[in-house]
């Protein structure tokens, strides 16, 4: 009997590995997503470039989504050309670019909203501080 996965991939199943924390570029939405836990997270939009991902029931981050990643990566490559040729990209470098790029949306916000944004960027930074993405998985190679 055909399973659902058989029906999803009639030309053959992709290679299946065990879940582990991972950063993955999703080309169709142009976003780099890092998730630490395999849960139905709750996405919390911070600005046009950053969404933080909360545990479904607990008050803790389980992931980060960097949106407009192609734009972020091109901007990063312009200021630090070595990122295009290095084997790995530390994800926190892209987060720094997002912090600067997304500031326009909060220019007219009140102090409390700006502090909230800064706090979420810091939480994201802590979560991905040791995460690097292989160069082959970046949008330039997609």
């Amino acid at each position, binding site marked *: 009997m055909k399973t659902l996965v058989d029906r999803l991939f009639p030309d053959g199943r*992709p290679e299946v590995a065990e879940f582990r924390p991972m950063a993955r570029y999703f080309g*169709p939405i142009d*976003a780099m997503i890092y998730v630490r836990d395999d849960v139905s997270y*709750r996405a919390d*939009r911070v600005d046009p470039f950053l969404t933080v991902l909360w545990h479904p*029931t607990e008050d803790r981050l389980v992931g980060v989504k960097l949106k407009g990643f*192609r734009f972020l990566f091109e901007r990063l490559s312009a200021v630090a050309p070595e990122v295009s040729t290095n084997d790995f990209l530390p994800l926190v470098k892209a987060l720094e670019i997002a912090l600067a790029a997304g500031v326009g949306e909060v220019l007219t916000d009140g102090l409390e909203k700006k502090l909230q944004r800064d706090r979420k960027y810091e939480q994201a930074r802590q979560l991905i501080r040791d995460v690097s993405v292989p160069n082959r998985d970046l949008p330039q190679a997609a």
Partner: protein
Amino acid sequence: MLGPIHRLNDRGTALVIQAAHPDDRARIVSIRASSETLRSMVSDRWNSKIGEYVGLVHGNLRITSETTLEPIDAPTQGLLAAHACFMGVRRPVGKSPSGDRIAVYVIQAPYTYQFPDRSGVAVRTAAPARSVFTVEADFPEDGEAEIVFWEWVLAASDDATLPENHDARYVRRCWL
């Protein structure tokens, strides 16, 4: 669980999803799910994402009964259950400065799903707290529409049926 429409997606075509058109809620169209997105999720064994697709985007699924632990039919309307739709996301997408071709469907569901094995039977669990489920579909000017991503997002504090800050994140509301 099923609403007044009572239409189900075909189990034999797991990648083709029925949905109301963003510009005309009465018009039901078939949208293909991105095989690139699904392939990545399956490769990474991202079971919660596969479960969400099976249970909330497609919907015609079998689950493990919470009482008997046997497989039972427990279909949902999938994407046809959407009660709101927005068009355009306010962020760069690829080479475009804005995602003005992306529709975002909003679903309120009491459950989410895990897909812990490859037997075709999902596990139903309570939906994440204070959240709504969203499905993004790309509607290019020329070419076929494609479902590109899905996720739970925090609900608005003043309207628990819609995503938080929906005015800031989406360009326009299509229907509600």
